[in-house]
């Protein structure tokens, strides 16, 4: 494999996080997020960032993956830092940026260490009390995993659109990069929907329980 693992993709790796149950990881992520948001000050934010980075490392993410997360995050992170520093001081700027990055890394650690089908089973299990109220829990679980799956797919479409724009000498045109991306994303969604329908996944009918 030459390509770095995209954000939102499972990394085949034998680590402590891979051995944990998906439900434990989701609860852990929830608790970590709450703690990060509650704890004040730039020092605790720094600690949170260190924990997030350690988790991501344990999940098998390496230098190249970190670099990509940081680069993508910089698009929002840099303007946010400038704004926070200007309006509330550098301590606040560091806190906000470190908090956000810590959460992104911790969430990446969960997706990198959890197989999508295990996540599907866990979400479906966690929602099972709702099944009695007539909620189609399988469908909700499928929506979750499709959402996670579509992140790298849309990234790939974005790269295609960018290359196509460059091939035509339009790399500076925002329109040439975004319009094809939006259209192809919708078209990909339709194809995926057809494929799901063809495989009988999510067909409008209660689960058959006969022999």
């Amino acid at each position, binding site marked *: 494999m030459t390509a770095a693992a995209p954000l939102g993709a499972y990394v085949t790796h034998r680590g402590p996080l891979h051995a944990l149950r998906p439900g434990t990881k989701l609860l852990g992520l929830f608790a970590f997020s709450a703690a990060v948001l509650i704890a004040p000050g730039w020092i605790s934010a720094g600690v949170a960032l260190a924990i997030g980075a350690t988790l991501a490392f344990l999940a098998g993410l390496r230098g190249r993956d970190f670099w990509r997360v940081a680069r993508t995050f910089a698009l929002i992170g840099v303007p946010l830092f400038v704004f926070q520093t200007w309006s509330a001081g550098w301590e606040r700027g560091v806190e906000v940026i470190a908090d956000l990055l810590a959460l992104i890394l911790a969430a990446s650690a969960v997706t990198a260490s959890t197989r999508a089908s295990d996540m599907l089973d866990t979400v479906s299990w966690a929602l099972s009390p709702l099944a009695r109220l007539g909620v189609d829990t399988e469908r909700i679980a499928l929506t979750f995993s499709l959402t996670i*799956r579509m992140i*790298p797919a849309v990234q790939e479409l974005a790269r295609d659109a960018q290359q196509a724009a460059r091939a035509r000498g339009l790399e500076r045109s925002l329109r040439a990069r975004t319009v094809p991306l939006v259209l192809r994303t919708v078209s990909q969604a339709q194809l*995926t929907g057809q494929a799901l329908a*063809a495989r009988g996944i999510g067909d409008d009918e209660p*689960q058959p329980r006969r022999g």
Partner: protein
Amino acid sequence: MISFNQASVVAHDGATILHPVSLRLTEQRISVIGANGSGKSTLARLINGLVEPSSGSVTVHTGTGTGTDAGTGTGLDTVADGAAVRRAVGFVFTDPSAQLIMPTVIEDVELSLRREHRDAGARRAAALAALDRFGLAGFAERSVHALSGGQQQLLAIATVLATEPRILITDEPTTLLDLRNTGIIGDLLLSLPQQVVIVTHNLELAARADRTLVVSDGRIAFDGEPAAAVAHYRERVAAQ
């Protein structure tokens, strides 16, 4: 058996995509050829209810194919019994990357098997068995994106056949493949125990079927013996 009963398809803007067609498809291997935009794909999508007929009906008979149920009996209507029809009729698309949904090879097969196997362990074992049948067991933990085009199409077929449908419809399954993979996929499709309908531009593959339909401008222009059908299609193109 698949039967079309005066089934037609009209687009939202009123254009006729498929004129009323009546067919009884009983042969094991059926190929469909014709120009781009002739209505071949629509014909194929009618069989598993991905497209619903504007008039008439399409029914699928899932009897074992032997005995009395083969020709008579009440079939499944693609509109009224859509979900049951899609369980009985598998569909393989041209572009496997749109069909493969989960990140890794084995998970995609497992997704097909969620309905039959509630237990994760049994599901995994069944998925591995399905992969093994197509020589893909060694790729179980790979990302579906890391596979070659031929392997992806093989996997797409494996995920569909994992649920053991009675009928398999394939819409240009070899269009994106190289010569070697075209041969592999073609041989596989023609050797399956299922009734197989292959929509294709590959005339060599089409000629290996038991019966061939030529679709032109939304009508069946020729229906019969494959070699004669291919010759008819070549003449028709040459005459234009």
